[in-house]
């Protein structure tokens, strides 16, 4: 801000502000610290005293134990990555195409189709018919596409992209028309490159949604080989036995499995990529929220 005189109002505001922000930041970051501490504390200590705030008895047994099921985790990573990449690519592409068509002023049925999409944000049939449609008529049970298809089209994202396209002047595409390029070519070669900012942020949001998705897995997936990461973790947290089975399958005999510390270690392995990428992608998310907010 501009030059500020240190008057009483500014001083008191600063005190309140620094205290509030610091408190809330600690609240936001502390749980992550707790997960790290929990994963490197010995099982013996946790069983006796519970999870601790500060690392006491250091131990890597939880990670060593997880290594027994490295194959399962790697597979969940693979499934999650595949679903995220495929879903994000096709989802954003389909949404962007639709947004472009709805943005074209010479497209006569623009209003009809806009309403067709918009109405779905106002009214839905509810979870139950949707679920029965997916399971009984589309055979989603234990299929990879069950994890990709439901989140593919987002009307909300479509509207955000459409809003952005409005800022591209029509003159840009005119010469291409005169040269006889068709609509699809213009979309690919001119419109997409010009809308990189919005496409990038929408892609990030879509990817994050796919990466963090557990809901579709919970509804449709029973086959362990198709578990996504979040769901894998959910299963593991929910059952103390889940771990044992995983170790059993690997043919490892362990008399006292480090269940509690392993729960935290597994969580850490699941958050890992997000925490790692967060510093790099954060600013694009911030930009994306701002675009979306202006649009709304």
């Amino acid at each position, binding site marked *: 801000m501009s030059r500020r005189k240190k008057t009483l109002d500014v001083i008191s505001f600063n005190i309140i502000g620094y205290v509030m*922000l610091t408190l809330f930041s600690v609240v936001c970051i502390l749980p992550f610290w*707790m997960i790290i501490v929990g994963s490197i504390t010995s099982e013996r200590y946790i069983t006796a005293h*519970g999870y601790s705030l500060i690392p006491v008895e250091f131990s890597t047994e939880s990670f060593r134990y997880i290594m027994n099921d490295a194959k399962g985790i790697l597979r969940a990573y693979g499934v999650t990555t595949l679903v995220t990449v495929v879903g994000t690519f096709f989802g954003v592409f389909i*949404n962007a195409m639709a947004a472009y068509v709805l943005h074209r002023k010479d*497209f006569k049925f623009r209003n009809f189709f806009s309403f067709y999409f918009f109405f779905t944000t106002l009214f839905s049939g509810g979870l139950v018919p949707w679920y029965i*449609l997916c399971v009984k*008529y589309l055979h989603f049970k234990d299929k990879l596409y069950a994890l990709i298809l439901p989140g593919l*089209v987002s009307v909300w994202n479509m509207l955000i992209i459409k809003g952005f396209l409005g800022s591209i002047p029509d003159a840009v595409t005119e010469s291409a028309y005169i040269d006889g390029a068709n609509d699809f070519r213009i979309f690919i070669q001119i419109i997409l490159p010009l809308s990189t900012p919005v496409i990038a942020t929408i892609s990030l949001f879509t990817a994050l949604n796919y990466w*963090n998705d557990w809901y579709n897995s919970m509804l449709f997936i029973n086959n362990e080989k198709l578990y996504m990461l979040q769901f894998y973790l959910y299963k593991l947290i929910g059952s103390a036995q889940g771990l044992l089975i995983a170790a059993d399958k690997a043919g490892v005999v362990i008399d006292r499995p480090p269940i509690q510390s392993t*729960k935290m270690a597994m969580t850490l392995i699941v958050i890992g990529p997000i925490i790692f990428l967060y510093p790099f992608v954060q600013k694009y998310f911030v930009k994306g929220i701002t675009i979306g907010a202006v649009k709304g």
Partner: protein
Amino acid sequence: MKAVIKEIKKKKILFLMLMPAFIHVFIFSYLPMAGAILAFKRFQYNLGIFKSPWAGFSNFRFFFISGDAFRVTVNTLMYNLIFITVNNFLEISFAIILSELSGRIFKKITQSVMFLPYFISWVIAGVIVYNFFNYEFGVFNGIRRALGLEPVDVYNSANWWRVLLVFFSAWKNVGYGTIIYLSAIMGIEQEMFDAAEIDGANLYQRIRHIMLPSLVPTMVMLLLLAVSNIFRGDFGLFYQLVGTNPLVYDATDIIDTYVFRSLMTSSDIGMAAAAGLYQSVMCFITILVVNKIVKSVHSDYALF
């Protein structure tokens, strides 16, 4: 009709480009709307939605008479109202603080840290609650035991959940909302502040008379969206943090968890569909009413 076909021929490629999204929305949004008639049927899986026998309003009657409808509706509404109030209050406060503090590095760090929980799935938030409040191993009871106090069975206590759910809703969402309000503040003309300062307004007066009024459009927009969804609970928050625990349904059961549970565990698919349709209709009515009111007061803010 002829004109339509001619137009389609002329704009063939545009139509083809629209088709994937059109078909997807048709299958996943419009077909379930038709399938909502399930609420008036006695569903038999082998017969499918359309061949199952009619049941009139008996699914709804059952849902309302059991008292479940009242309980989950009140919970859904109350929680959403509290979430909206608490979260918006915090978001606006933090946005104003972030815009006025001078410590550049401090602001950068706190903003990043506050935004982090938004990137975490509810599953992980569930682990965090487990880490803190698990009866045997949780940090909370660990501290209590160390101080010689009785451990608390947080997971089975309705009142604890009332606090925790509000807390974690804020924990996860406030960072996101703060960014929206902050970008609105950044859009305010700097001259206004300078003029007010020259006129002798102190910092609090500037916030009260310039910043807050400038935030009204953003606030109204966000409130509109939130109020439109007031009958829709955050399923992930309730399901992942609380799980399925009949002991605390009074405090933690919302329409979404109720519908999900009825669908998954009971054989009463018809009633689950009735509860779901009830929710959709309530949502729809709410949006129309809220939009109408906003339109009559200030048409610029209306959704449609």
